[in-house]
């Protein structure tokens, strides 16, 4: 029996890893097409992500919000909702964390920091709950509503930094948050600072794991995700759990936004999220919606992101990361393609051995 469980986990692990490898191969063809050497490109990428302690810290910093948006999307998947709105929830979280953080100057850090974090989470949760509520109440598909909410939050953010919160000139931006609301720096390597944000993100992964696997709330959310009819029959409210799952999902994305403000930018910017919410989709799919898998998937995408900056110096647009992600998600969607390749190889091998 134990052996069987191990086997299942192994195949859950192999498909995403294979998908990433295949995606890197296809992307190298794309790189060849613009006349560059993919080997050099990937070498630059690897060096850019892990080449020095500074690069390594930078990768960790980039990974932090990705763990949270990955958890946000993955948690939604477990409840049977496809939250494409992590981008907007993260933005709203960042916006409200900024507003809170700006006004907490008179309080010591041990009050200012938790309040700032909570405002971000709360706003993310509220923003996502709109889609959850509409789905539960009217049946409006969350894919459409969360996309629309993304655009609304995008313009709302633009409005805030161009109007009410506008400060200085140049890039529209908000004022800085109070010093007491900033996360302390634990390691500094030249201009790159590492804050405890990464530990908060990992802690959240563990919390989500416990919530899903060890509590009756997790049981209900999974039951609704797998089979809403049976859940309802078992006295589990679909509406309540859909809204709850969206709220938790949004809170995680909101936390990602808050930590970006408190540990990196110290203010709200229109470009703050820049696709990190969408990255959550690929991360949760690569991580197979498992909190621990998501940590590793986030590290992968985080290092691709830092590495891609280095690649740009080698003349390769950083959009290559999106292409790679697109291919990975495609292969995860149609995971039978990868499984077929794997079993074909196995069969082939067996044939040769005979």
């Amino acid at each position, binding site marked *: 029996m134990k052996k069987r469980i191990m086997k299942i986990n192994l195949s859950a692990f192999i498909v995403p890893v294979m998908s990433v490898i295949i995606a890197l191969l296809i992307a190298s063809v*794309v790189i060849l097409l*613009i*006349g560059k050497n993919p080997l050099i490109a990937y070498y630059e990428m690897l060096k850019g992500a892990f080449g020095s302690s500074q690069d390594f810290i930078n990768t960790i910093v980039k990974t932090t919000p990705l763990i949270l948006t990955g958890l946000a999307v993955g948690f939604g998947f477990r409840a049977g909702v*496809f939250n*494409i709105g992590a981008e907007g929830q993260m933005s709203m979280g960042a916006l409200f964390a900024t507003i809170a953080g700006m006004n907490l100057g008179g309080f010591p850090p041990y009050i200012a920091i938790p309040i700032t974090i909570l405002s971000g989470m709360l706003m993310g949760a509220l923003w996502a709950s709109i889609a959850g509520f*509409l789905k539960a*109440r*009217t*049946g*409006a*598909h969350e*894919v*459409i*509503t969360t*996309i*629309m*909410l*993304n*655009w*609304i939050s995008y*313009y*709302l953010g*633009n*409005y805030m930094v*161009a*109007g009410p919160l*506008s400060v200085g000139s140049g890039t529209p931006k908000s004022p800085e948050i109070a010093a007491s609301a900033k996360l302390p720096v634990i390691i500094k390597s030249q201009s790159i600072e590492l804050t405890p944000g990464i530990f908060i993100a990992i802690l959240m992964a563990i919390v989500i794991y416990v919530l899903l696997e060890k509590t009756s709330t997790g049981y209900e959310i999974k039951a609704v995700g797998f089979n809403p009819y049976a859940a309802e029959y078992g006295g589990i409210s679909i509406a309540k759990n859909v809204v709850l799952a969206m709220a938790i999902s949004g809170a995680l994305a909101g936390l990602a936004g808050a930590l970006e403000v408190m540990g990196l930018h110290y203010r709200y910017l229109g470009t703050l999220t820049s696709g990190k919410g*969408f990255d959550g*989709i*690929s991360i949760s*799919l690569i991580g197979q919606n498992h909190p621990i898998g998501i940590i590793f998937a986030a590290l992968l995408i985080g290092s691709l992101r830092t590495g891609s900056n280095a690649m740009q110096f080698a003349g390769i*647009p950083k*959009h*290559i*990361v*999106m*292409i*790679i*992600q*697109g*291919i*990975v*998600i*495609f292969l*995860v*969607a*149609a*995971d*039978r*393609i990868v499984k077929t390749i794997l079993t074909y190889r196995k069969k082939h091998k067996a044939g040769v051995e005979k």
Partner: protein
Amino acid sequence: MTWIISILNIFTNPLFYKITLTAATPFIFAALGGVFSEITGVVNIALEGIMLLGAFVSIVFTYLTGSPWIGVLMAMISGLGMAWLHAWASIKWYGNQIVSGTALILLAQGLTGFLMEPIFGKPGQTDFIGRIKDIKIPFVKNIPFVGEIIGELNPLVFIAIGLVFFSWWFLYKTTMGLRMRAVGENPEAADTLGINVYKIRYFGVLMSGILASLGGAFLSVGELGQFKELMTGGRGFIALAAMILGNWNPIGAFWACLLFGAAEAMNNQLQSSPILQISASTKPLFNMLPFIVTIIVVSGFIGRTRAPAADGVPYIKD
């Protein structure tokens, strides 16, 4: 009070209706694409990505050949390619259709961004490359009011409207249309009558790719004459909402597209209203309008329309 006056002014101005038609055109192409795909039972949220790639490809080939029509043709081929990928994943491999669609959107965003520098030498947006000229209709142009709306428009606008009626005829009057509707509703029943479910679904999805890419091409070579990164700006999703609101029927979707087009036109006209004098910093608030309308419409009407029964469900023969 100034608000009411300026809104009334907008409604009495033929320009508002002309912008509505133009703004609705990309929605119409994409929503018709959505109908063709979903009526056979395949959900296609990749419309957004197909449009974006279509917008890009048409500009690239206009740039290379000087002819925007060749651009449009190549855009259709690119749409066919994207749709084929989606069909392959969701029909042949029983993939999750929403996840596959998401992948293709990312792929289109990545590819178009990636190729900007190698082709045009700079990221972000291209210069003005060229566009399809508007056509004037001789007599109609002189009719007051109406002439100002439809007297001079981009030919793609007329093609879009023509396609609405063609699609309706095709889906409801031809044998292929009957088979497509049957496959989207009950693929097993169609299968027992010797209808090849997979082929019909491939056809529906491929058609959706061609149609949606036309919507993208309209945005670039039809309207602006240039390509901007992420220029579709969620229109593929609004088109999906229009398809739902239109009850998966080409004519219904057409009316819904006009509604969303009107929301965009209203936003456009309010922002440039000489009475209201909207400041640059509050303009983003107005840009939310089409998205808010979409949410309200999707939430308000969803229970009253009916999706094809097998929509989004892979057909697995045992």
